[in-house]
């Protein structure tokens, strides 16, 4: 479709992307999150990534569950349709929406409570179906909106504001989703825009399920010393294994000083990903090795970030279904109804 809202004020000096849109055209409503909430930084990264990717805002469908994190789709891309679903069940809405129209850009935003507690089953099955979407978990180790209970990603030893310690092992969305066959799995940190924006861009361009686990401190309930999801903790144990730079085909960025050990991954749409700092021989396509590496690092208490696993060969929902190219929702009834004559033939079997 070609309905792109043209900027109304043409003399503005703000930079424009290839669609002539300014960054503010990718913004949304005012955030109602706490000042300093990590989630707001991720919102900003979304704005940046969509703007840089020259995506027509209305061709995006934003989806979320319930939680502070799940409120954020209202805070970017106000020109796109958005949907706050019920708690933990956004993946099923995403699946249905995707089935109805395979051509939009689907971006899901969720929290660790929304995705790893109530929503774990739906997340797992969306991964298994390899929905074509970007799924971002804004991970703070707590239920922010209900005032700071531990989520399933709280690390052992974390303490709540009230002083209770978590003693249950965390669920790690990264290894969880690699185990279930997600073809694009990354981790980043809400405070690291330089890493996050390219990852979001890469995830959006990836054909299939792209999951980014973004550590996103809850300043109100989980940013004190005892929390392993605090800014301090995260900064200290932050371990970027891999950096990605997203390179759209029509504007191939040549790195000033391309590193020797850089690895270029070809994506479905002809674009590619450039992995940096793979020096240690990290190959995000070798699953057994990735699994071992991540488990080892985890045991050392490190938070490995970057693009951690990629598999470009997986067919998505529609590829497996062999769906027609026209979005199903736009097929004319004439194409759908068998008609009276066929009905008569069908009846024959039951006479």
């Amino acid at each position, binding site marked *: 479709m070609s309905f792109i809202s043209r900027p109304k004020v043409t003399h503005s000096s703000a930079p424009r992307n290839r669609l002539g849109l300014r960054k503010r055209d990718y913004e949304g409503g005012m955030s109602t999150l706490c000042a300093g909430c990590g989630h707001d930084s991720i919102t900003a990264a979304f704005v940046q990534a969509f703007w840089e990717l020259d995506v027509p805002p209305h061709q995006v469908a934003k989806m979320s569950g319930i939680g502070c994190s799940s409120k954020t789709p*209202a805070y970017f891309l106000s020109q*796109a349709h958005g949907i*706050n679903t019920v708690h933990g069940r956004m993946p099923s809405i995403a*699946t*249905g929406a995707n089935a109805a*129209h395979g*051509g939009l850009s689907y971006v899901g935003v969720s929290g660790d409570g929304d995705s790893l507690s109530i929503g774990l089953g739906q997340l797992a099955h969306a991964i298994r179906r390899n929905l074509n979407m970007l799924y971002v978990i804004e991970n703070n180790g707590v239920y922010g909106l209900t005032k700071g209970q531990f989520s399933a990603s709280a690390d052992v030893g974390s303490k709540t504001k009230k002083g209770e310690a978590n003693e249950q092992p965390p669920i790690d969305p990264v290894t969880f989703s690699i185990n279930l066959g997600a073809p694009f799995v990354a981790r980043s940190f809400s405070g690291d825009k330089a890493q996050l924006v390219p990852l979001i861009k890469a995830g959006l361009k990836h054909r299939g399920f792209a999951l980014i686990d973004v550590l996103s401190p809850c300043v109100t309930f989980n940013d004190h010393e005892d929390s392993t999801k605090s800014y301090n903790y995260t900064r200290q144990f932050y371990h970027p294994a891999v950096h990605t730079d997203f390179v759209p085909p029509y504007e191939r960025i040549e790195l000033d000083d391309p590193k020797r050990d850089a690895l270029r991954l070809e994506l479905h749409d002809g674009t590619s990903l450039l992995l940096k700092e793979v020096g240690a021989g990290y190959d995000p396509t070798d699953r057994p090795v990735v699994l071992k590496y991540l488990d080892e690092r985890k045991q050392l208490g490190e938070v490995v970030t970057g693009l951690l696993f990629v598999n470009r060969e997986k067919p998505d929902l529609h590829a497996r279904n062999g769906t027609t190219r026209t979005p*199903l929702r736009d097929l004319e009834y004439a194409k759908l109804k068998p008609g009276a004559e066929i*009905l008569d033939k069908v009846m024959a079997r039951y006479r």
Partner: protein
Amino acid sequence: MINDFVIKIATVNGTGSASANTLLMKSIFRMGVPVVGKNFFPSNIQGLPTWYEIRVTKDAYLCRSGKVNVLVAMNAETYRQDLAEVAPGGFLIYDSTWPRDRELQRDDIRVLGIPLAQMCNETFSPARVRILMKNICYVGALAALLEIDLDVIEGLLKETFRDKQKLIDSNMQAVRMGYGYAIEHFDCPLPFHLEPMDKTAGHIMIDGNTAAGLGCVYAGATVGAWYPITPSTSLMDAFNAFCSRLRVDSESGERNYCIVQAEDELSAIGMVLGASWNGARSFTPTSGPGVSLMAEWIGYGYFTEIPAVIFDVQRVGPSTGMPTRTQQCDLYSCAYASHGDTKHPCLYPSDPKECFEMAPVAFDLAERLQTPVFVLSDLDIGMNDWMVPEFTWDETYEPDRGKVIRAEELEDGRSFQRYADVDGDGIPWRTLPGDHPAGSYFTRGSGHTAAAKYTEDADEYRKLVDRLARKWETAKDWVPGPVVDERQGLKYAVLAIGSSDGAVREARDKLAGQGVELNYLRVRAFPFSDEVSDFIDRHERVFVVEQNRDAQLRMMLITETGVSSEKLVSVRQYDGMPIESRTVVEAINAVIDNEVAA
């Protein structure tokens, strides 16, 4: 006794008797004689007792008769119970390969032994074929005993096996073997037997799930999501089968539909809502436990105003209940599904034909009203073959997609507020994702303004839910009205729902025979239109016939129409067997006798 009796076959599931029984029933149907077929099967896969009951009914009744005249006892385990069930003067046929216990005899019926296993073992191999042929063999015996036309049987076998001549031959061999044995050893035909009629012309034998699946294809549904559950599974199977034949692009081989097997019912309904939000006609078939699991999502659909079509093929509740038995027990759980103030339109088909016809109606309603709509079928309708008039299709039908503003109009500057009641009918306009920036809005299950903004404001909230109440009033005018059969001046009436229809029809004939005449109204939808309350008002006493313990329909009538509860007498059968006319007749007689006596 001619063209008016019941055959019941007692077997073990997993032995292939189902196809033999269908062959038998279909043969009678092809002879022009109306039939009712009911399958009573266990909730397992193989090795447990199962029964198939064929009522031969020259008067074309649609319910069970409550009697068995000819019983084919193929299951030694249930022999005692089967023997007891034959009505005096009836016949019991058993496999005499193994002798039956002497004690298991009755004087008031005739017992006919046929060495089915022995004959098949001598004739066929390997073992699997022998087992299958035993079934075909009793069909042959019945053909002799009941005078079923062998040519009709052969014709049906040919349709089934097409050019597999060998299969046709071996099956016919089995048929003839049974036939020959019966002719040789018994007085054929029995007093209960068939004579060709012409009462099935223009009719088909079809089950409601197949009909509903076909209806969804014709309604233009493109996305189906489901999680398997008895007795709804065959609905999606049918949709799938029809689509694979009728909805695949002949050139590209591409599919014009997408079926997703969900991981559970919460996910299935979520997918339906997601697809509908994105503009596709989408549906899910399920049964009671699935509806319970969908409750949160249903309320979401109601409050965010997203269309959805849910087929609830009801089975016996509560909980897992009896998955292979029938009931009309989810009236409440569907109508009021979800917490908070919620109400949902429901359609109540009474037979497979209505399952077919109500599919497009359900989709039109869901999209016009922008809300989840239930179609409440049941196991009896959904999984049994019913004799119904052939389906026809009105070529002028166009799906009514409701109030949708597409890209062109938005580009032309048409203004849009997602939740504004611009037309006064309580129904707002919607737009589709991906169409146009001016159409963008945010859908949420929390409080929202007419412009779809988040709100916690008391007035905004009240405006919103009052509009939803207004929409409910609109729905009253749009849902299918009741089917009424009324003569002026009668003081008694029957009011029924769904598959209880058949029993009511026969009961009215029987009561009329006794001199008791009753008017009749069958509700076809919730909310109830004024026709329903007016009908009740016109009568002194209305018998409400339904298949659940708690008289759910009666309760809904009382609360939603304001009719006096004293007027409504409840008639219920809720033991999992499809309701019989006897239940209705006896209940009505009891009240009327009482009133006369009083």
